[in-house]
């Protein structure tokens, strides 16, 4: 039996005290322990940002890559070895800003991985610029007149792209979040969990209290009812639902690739004879 402690890292945490990321970290440990997969069998991939530092604070395999680029890197790893159990930790800037194009196309592919977007509605690590999810009017040193672009709604966009698993979580509700993560991990294909995460240093609007007052738990009663899912994903303001907005079965990407039927690429044998016969025949 694994416990959350089995995922503790010796490496010293670097987040601000009180940061919402701690809740996500704890929920992850809880989910992983419950899933019963030992740390050495898990691969966590992240971009760059406060969210993307998460894997350093766990003791799994990890690749802390470039800002915005976790998803294509994860796909590459998955192509090489589709037995890998992959979790991606990304920020709202990382995933929806710099990495926006990869986000779209990862969903189109339906790569089997669990995508946790630590959505603090701000650029944390670079000290407080607006992010794609910052609310209209939010002012920062770089947006002194306030944000004027419509906030990016990850779950809604994922739904419009045909995602098979779309959920929203809250870092302040650890148990609920842990269960979302577990369900996401159980789901074959891409599972997006957009997690509302207070940034105590830079987001003075969407604070812990702010979320606390608004968040309510709900799941889509018919998980594959797309219009209803769309409605849930767009609910924002006085009441903000958390839960699974949408779920449906879809073949995941590597299962659709003919050449992978014989097992993960890295476990197959080099075949010089076949290569030679390709040469001879060409």
């Amino acid at each position, binding site marked *: 039996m694994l416990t959350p402690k089995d995922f503790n890292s010796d490496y010293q945490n670097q987040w601000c005290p009180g940061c919402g990321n701690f809740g996500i970290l704890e929920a992850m440990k809880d989910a992983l322990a419950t899933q019963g997969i030992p740390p*050495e069998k898990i*691969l966590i991939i992240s971009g*760059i940002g406060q969210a993307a530092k998460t894997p350093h604070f766990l003791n799994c395999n*990890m690749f802390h890559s470039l800002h915005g680029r976790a998803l294509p890197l994860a796909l590459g790893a998955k*192509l090489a070895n589709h037995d890998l159990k992959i979790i991606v930790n990304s920020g709202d800037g990382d995933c929806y800003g710099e990495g926006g194009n990869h986000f779209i196309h990862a969903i189109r592919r339906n790569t089997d991985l669990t995508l946790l977007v630590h959505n603090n509605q701000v650029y944390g690590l670079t000290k407080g610029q607006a992010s794609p999810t910052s609310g209209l009017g939010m002012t920062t040193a770089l947006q002194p007149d306030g944000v004027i672009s419509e906030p990016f709604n990850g779950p809604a966009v994922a739904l419009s792209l045909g995602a098979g698993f779309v959920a929203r979580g809250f870092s302040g509700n650890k148990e609920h979040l842990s269960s979302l993560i577990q369900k996401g991990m159980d789901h074959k294909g891409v599972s997006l969990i957009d997690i509302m995460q207070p940034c105590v240093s830079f987001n003075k609007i969407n604070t812990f209290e702010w979320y606390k007052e608004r968040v309510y738990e709900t799941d889509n009663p018919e998980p594959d009812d797309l219009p209803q899912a769309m409605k849930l994903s767009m609910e924002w303001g006085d009441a903000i639902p958390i839960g699974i907005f949408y779920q449906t079965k879809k073949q995941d990407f590597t299962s659709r690739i003919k050449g992978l039927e014989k097992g993960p690429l890295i476990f197959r044998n080099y075949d010089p004879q076949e290569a030679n016969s*390709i040469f001879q025949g060409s």
Partner: protein
Amino acid sequence: MSTHTNIDMTIKIGGAAGQGIQTIGNLLARACRDAGFYIMAINDFESRVRGGHSFFQMRISDKPVYAPHHRIDLLIALNRETWDLHKDQLQDDGIAILEVPLDSPSKQVFEVEFSTLAKEIGSSLYSNTVAAAVGLSILGASFDKIADLLSWQFAGKKEDIIQKNIKAARLGYDAVKDIQFSRQPFLKTSNPKGQIMEGSRAIALGAIASDCRVAAFYPMSPATSIMQHLAGWTNRLPLVVEQAEDEIAAVNMVIGASFAGARAMTATSGGGFCLMTEGLGLSAITETPIVIVDAQRPGPATGLPTRTAQGDLLFAIHASQDDFPRFVFAPGSLLEAFELTQKAFALSEKYQVPAIILVDQYMVDAIFLLEHSFTFSKKVERFTVGDKDLKDPKNYNRYELTPSGVSPRALPCTGAARVIVSSDEHREDGHITEDIDNRNAMVNKRKSKLPDMIREMSVPQALYPEAKIVLLGWGSTSGSIKESVEGLRNEGMDVGCLLFTDLWPFPTAIVESHLKDPVKIIITVEQNSGAQFGHLLKEQTGISCTHAILKYDGRPFYPIEIMDAVKEKEKH
């Protein structure tokens, strides 16, 4: 040229994109190869799908040929533009076959209404078959051979289609049977000398000989064909080819695949390579092997998308922020393309650094005769470790400091060893640190691979290196430079050349020993406007080139251009 001594002739077929020039080219090339000739051919086309002007130009010889020839013996023009653009290239005793009549007749020019004949068979689509048969007829091929070829070319198509093509060929064949032409190579055939191959295929074969398992790419001329070969083989090998949403994704997929344990590559052109430069740095700091093919084309930016250039050399060497070791190779022949691709994979993995292969549109799209078979080694040496190779897998350090700078590389989720990788500067265990001593140790670790890496670099191929005038070349210009050297020597000039394939880390010591004589005239020959190799040479050795012969119009060098330029420079 007289038929009884030796054969060296050039045939050019021109027309609009979409007229099937490439099919004609395939047929002619195959026929010549089957008849025992050496061939090489260039494909010249515009960045469009239909219309405009394109051509296939093949040199046929009884000796190996590695460069295109500037004069044409037989010109087949499917449209008027072909004649207008290329008539000056026609040999004095060459002939041209035109679809459209000229205003003023010439005794070198004959008319064949390809499309009228094709329509007799049922569709103007057969024009290209008519044209191919016209060409082969003039060159003296037997009609049986042509019929065989068509059956081969259209194998898999309906019998009806094959028969119609044969009929179309007959019409073309007969239409020119009265033309007397001084070159009829097909009268003197012999056994095939090898296999027809494009540069792109040699690279793709090099990749599978390296056990490449993941290829990710975003389509971009002239690199796409390399990936196209690989895509065709995915059901026969443990190989996946994935089209990415952009080049940034492509290079990061390759890094991810390599990290997880598969050899992986991507191919692009300069604009796509720009977008991969950040990934190049990621490969470097995480010490994850990757192979990137940059198939160069003229720039800046979109430039001339379907044409050739060697303008990315210094960019490839310096791309991405800060200093780090990398390999850069530039093959100049099919065999080099096959072998350097393997070398790139092997060394990239051995030293855990990125490797870049510089080719270009000419190299990738041209066809050559491969004289000696490629050999696929029984085993591909891998440079990764597992638990069993580690003293203490549970406390595995991905970036362990070692005398060689290379740390044992384990793969994630394949054992007890936890693999921790970060693009931030990191400790031996892979976690981030900003510590000064650690930073210095890690930069030095990566840099310390360089001496061993330099030792892996091959000496440039030298032809008469002791000559007074030494031409320097790199990559695809090798064939044209060698031929120009022989040509100039035949004219009594003391010329030699050094041809580089292993460009970075620069094999300084070797090169210096070749060029130290201060009275030598050194001429760099390149397909760019900046004499980039010349600058690299000076930076690395202090040796200045006396002259530079530069061509940057997007078309490959003809040997004569180099010869003329050398003579011109010599005068001054």
